[in-house]
């Protein structure tokens, strides 16, 4: 019992045992042994991140100032790549589609939250089976899920078109993946369907860590369902939720396999989200300077999109550390 209560003290009603006075009163500076531990623990992480990600990143910044063909000598051209990009009409199409595609995260969050809240209730039977079922879209490679949807949405022979036609919702088959109006919405919806269980797993783990006694206490104080959600549930899952939203925005925008498989970035540039544009420059036109220029702008756009969540997340962690 004591262990359970000690897990999340401070919110909403502090039931943690009194802190040992000595430990609480003075936070000692880390002693030598602890400092060793800190650096020893950090070392592998820092090594991995710097070697696997930061060196390529810095090299990319360097490359974006060059005309850098796949084969042949690179040539310094300063900001020319950036000027070319901002001047091009397709670039702004790309930005628009990227913003639309990032909305997928909101849909994912809605589905994941509904499923996680429902499956954290005690009265639902066969919970672990349903949890497994929820996982299914994410339990197979996104390229596979893409293939499934290509089959289901096939304009001539697929299930979806068939039912939409027979119910009279549409009058003639729609070529979902090449229709300029639909293609960008379809890749967004398929991405939402594919990736939402990622958030579901994280949110469920966070919900499971809330001690039942908090809900009981809130009920004793007469809190209704909405109040209980606001006062008990939300504060405890906010950190996990923000972390998951940040990761999903970043990954939705950086991972390319599925939308590329579905539409190849077309028609025209209608579904070329920034990551696909990067791919087109790098591997279809062999222009690595331009590819990294787009890549850096992708980082910038992603950063702008996650900035508010990042801010909230940092605040949440600081608060947690004050408790």
């Amino acid at each position, binding site marked *: 019992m004591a262990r359970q209560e000690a897990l999340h003290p401070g919110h909403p009603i502090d039931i943690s045992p009194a802190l040992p006075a000595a430990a609480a009163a003075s936070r000692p500076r880390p002693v030598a042994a602890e400092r060793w531990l800190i650096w020893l623990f950090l070392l592998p992480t820092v090594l991995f991140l710097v070697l696997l*990600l930061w060196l390529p990143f810095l090299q990319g910044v360097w490359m974006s100032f060059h005309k850098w063909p796949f084969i042949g000598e690179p040539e310094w051209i300063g900001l020319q790549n950036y000027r070319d990009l901002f001047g091009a009409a397709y670039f702004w199409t790309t930005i628009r589609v990227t913003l639309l595609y990032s909305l997928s995260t909101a849909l994912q969050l809605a589905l994941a939250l509904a499923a996680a809240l429902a499956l954290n209730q005690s009265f639902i039977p066969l919970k672990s089976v349903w949890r497994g079922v929820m996982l*299914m879209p994410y339990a197979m490679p996104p390229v596979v899920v893409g293939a499934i949807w290509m089959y289901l949405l096939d304009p001539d022979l697929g299930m979806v078109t068939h039912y939409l036609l027979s119910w009279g919702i549409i009058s003639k088959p729609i070529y979902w993946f090449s229709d300029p109006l639909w293609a960008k919405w379809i890749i967004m919806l398929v991405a939402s369907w594919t990736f939402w269980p990622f958030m579901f797993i994280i949110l469920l*783990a966070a919900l499971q860590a809330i001690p039942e006694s908090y809900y009981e206490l809130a009920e004793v104080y007469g809190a209704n369902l909405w109040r209980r959600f606001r006062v008990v549930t939300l504060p405890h899952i906010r950190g996990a939720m923000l972390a998951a939203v940040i990761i999903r925005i970043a990954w939705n925008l950086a*991972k390319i396999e599925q939308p590329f498989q579905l539409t190849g970035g077309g028609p025209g540039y209608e579904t070329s989200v920034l990551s696909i544009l990067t791919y087109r420059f790098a591997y279809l036109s062999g222009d690595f300077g331009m590819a990294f220029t787009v890549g850096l702008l992708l980082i910038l756009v992603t950063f702008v999109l996650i900035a508010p969540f990042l801010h909230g997340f940092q605040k949440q962690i600081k608060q947690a550390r004050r408790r």
Partner: protein
Amino acid sequence: MAMHTRRATLTPKVLSYSGLAVVLLIVLIPYGYIALTAFKPAEEIFDVRWLPRVWSLDAWRYAIEFEQFHVYIYNSMIAGLGAAVLALCVAVPGAYVFGRKQFRGKDVMFYIIVMALLFPFVLLVVPFTILWVKIGLYDTMPGLWLAYQVFIIPFAIWILRAYFAELPRFLEECAMVYGCTAFKAFWRVMLPLAKPIITSLMFLAFLVGWNDFLFSNMLTTGQGPRTASVIIYVSAVGGERVEWDVLMVMTLMAGIPPVLLYILAQGQFLKTFAVRSY
């Protein structure tokens, strides 16, 4: 557990059941259709109907006997497991320190991680391939494990850090007052408390390896540790005509193991919490 004794009123029940039903339908309608397609003979693939007229195992036989698909499933399994273990060995200590300790350069570290999270991975493929060939990791399992860390470590640290930071701060101090070293406080006190989140993360990390196409495709050859996702991708877009029935069989074979694994891991979660409440 206390959960069972609590009186559930009507509103949460209605909300929960309807939420559950909607999400289940969204997941199960496409899947049900696919699962049944896997049992259709080739000529029925594009009849839009749920039940096959003739039940057939041809596609299953073809996938296993001709394509040797189970071998690739095994490869995916090893790729995912190795990646998950390696990732947690690196990320758990890092995230613990990052979430709970003060040290110089912490802010710099924060941006190092954020940037790692945002990097357009597709640009890493060519540099990695060149490097992997040079250092002999190309077409090997450890090479895949290492490459997957690009995805896993940043997000694992990100999530673990939040979890560790939210554990009450006096825990280690108590342990140390009672004579634990800093390391023992981590190993004996903090690690067991983080078990549910570590299990979930291990599972998500496994899925990164299991699902990855980008690196699995570029860093392996037909003779090496090809994973199932590459094989499925090739059969979905490679040939002139897609064998949809075989593809659906492969889809099911690739989708079921992680689901079972997750259901089993759930037992692990429940055990953790059963101990916690009484």
